[in-house]
């Protein structure tokens, strides 16, 4: 699904990622953890195609294709999705118009038939139910005046609507209370399938009480310094990141 090889990334000449290697197979759930400033969000944004980041070395292969030259919208149409840590507020554009445009852009991009207004409405209502979202959400401006939890829920609604092949969830759990975390994890778990891969970027082990990963990677100073199975998270929670950094130095 995704094969990242010695990826190096800079933003305004400051090197952030210093050689990342990561392989994600179909149906796998990978977690990326790491201290603040380690490059977690940069990795998410680079995968989504943010124009401010320059890839200075390495390769990203997505389903056998070179991802780097693709524009963000081309990546989305190819089935890649990123949930934003800080979703953008767009006043004046209603959620439902946005979702319909996005779903149809992705469908037509994949050579499928777009949905008309009636088909789309019943489609999106189903997705709202899945995330326990009130339909009134659909008629508000994108993220405008949404609480932190509502914004994150809206991100997962978009993921559910776009049905991506690879979803990168950037700190989807941050700022959520327990109830919201449960709903959002439920939404993510419902999306798990043998053909869909998920990368979770998170600070906290607690998300992993709800979503069980296949692999955990620890990112520090632009490199993956440790990979393991889910037991690694518990060890980190116990000992902190400094344990790994120290062992690296030794």
């Amino acid at each position: 699904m995704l094969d990242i090889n010695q990826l190096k990334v800079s933003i305004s000449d400051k090197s952030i990622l210093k050689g990342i290697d990561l392989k994600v197979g179909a149906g796998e759930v990978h977690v990326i953890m790491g201290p603040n400033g380690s490059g977690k969000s940069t990795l998410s944004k680079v995968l989504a195609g943010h124009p401010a980041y320059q890839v200075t070395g390495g390769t990203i292969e997505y389903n056998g294709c070179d991802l780097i030259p693709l524009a963000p919208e081309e990546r989305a149409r190819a089935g890649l999705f990123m949930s934003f840590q800080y979703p953008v507020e767009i006043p004046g554009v209603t959620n439902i118009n946005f979702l319909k445009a996005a779903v149809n852009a992705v469908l037509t991009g994949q050579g499928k038939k777009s949905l008309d207004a009636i088909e789309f409405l019943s489609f999106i209502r189903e997705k709202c139910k899945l995330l326990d979202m009130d339909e009134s959400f659909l008629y508000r401006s994108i993220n405008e005046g949404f609480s932190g939890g509502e914004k994150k829920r809206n991100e997962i609604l978009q993921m559910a609507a776009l049905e991506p092949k690879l979803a990168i969830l950037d700190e989807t759990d941050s700022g959520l209370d327990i109830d919201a975390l449960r709903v959002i994890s439920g939404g993510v778990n419902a999306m798990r399938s043998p053909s869909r891969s998920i990368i979770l970027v998170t600070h906290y082990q607690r998300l992993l009480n709800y979503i069980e990963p296949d692999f955990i990677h620890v990112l520090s100073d632009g490199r993956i310094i440790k990979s393991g199975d889910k037991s690694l998270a518990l060890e980190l929670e116990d000992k902190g990141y400094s344990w790994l950094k120290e062992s690296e130095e030794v």
Partner: protein
Amino acid sequence: MSEFVAFYEAQAKDAFSDIPWLLDIQQKALNDFLRLGFPNKHQEDWKYTSLAPFLKNSFAVDKSKSIVKERSNIPFAAGKTIHFCNGQLVEETLAAIPLPNGVLVNSLRKACVQHKDKLQPFLTSFFPARDGVHALNTAMLDQGLFIYVPADVLLDEPIVISHAQDKSHQASFIRHVVILEPGSRATVIEDYQGDDLVEYHTNTMTTIHLSASSHLTHYKIQREGKLSHHLGQLSAVLATGSQLDSHSFSIGGQLVRSDTSIHFQEPNASCLMNGIYAPTGKQHMDHHTEVIHNAPDCHSEQDYKGVLNGQSRAVFNGRVIVAKGAYHTRAEQQNKNLLLSTGTEVDTKPQLEIFADDVSCTHGATVGQLDEEALFYLATRGIGRADASRYLVQAFVGEN
């Protein structure tokens, strides 16, 4: 420039009426024009707008009858539109308009004879010539409409006036006069369009006179040909409890100047002014508004928005004057601009002059660009830059 002043002086003399009182008005206006000349950049109100492109050629009135093939009509008004073609009223289209009893929609020429008592006071008294462009419009007084709605008549159907031009180096001077008697209500739509390949000139002025508790909704659609020079004015006087809603939409012309002037003469009147200008290419659009609160308890609200593309330039200058004694005035003014390309420029200047106590006035101006983070967000959802920009521009135009 003097050769052009002489040229338009000759044009004005050609337009002189044989009705003595009207001739008197025209002669005085011509003297004003000769004294004032065309505005130049040394005048504060014309600091950012040069008439030089307009003053490269002379534009002459053509009195021959012609029919212009219009780009498009206003859909709901098909068959119910009054047409001016190359500056001349198409009489048949006026005759075809059904009107309730007592409502008058006449050619200005005919009204000067038949409704002198109603019209004459409104051709001079309220609006002294502010500059040479205005004075020349009055000196050229000939073509235009006289719209009169008697007391308590509520007009359901809008009065739609279409102005179209397709002759090179041709000038159209238009003056419309709209009078609403107490308690009446009407909607007037002015549409200006023309051939994109032809350089022509429009000098148009509409004066609005609202009696007590009357209500006018006025739309101006400026979609002139891309080479045209459009100089337009809208002036209104509001009596007690009257209301004016003005909506202006401007996309055409190479050189566009629009002056709107609102005079609150009696209490409890209100005025809403919405404007959108969207120049592209090398278009230059200048919108000046002036709201004069001469009476207490009136409310004015202005919301002008600009969306600039290409290497276009826009000017917004909004002046609100609250005169002594105009207490409890509420005046709001907002001008927001969105620059879509790096070659654009906007000069925006809100002005408040307050001489009364106990008033509430706000103003604000912003100039910004499309939010790159919003564009990226939409892109990550499969929506490409062109579509995403369209959404954001629509949202900008639609928000309050």
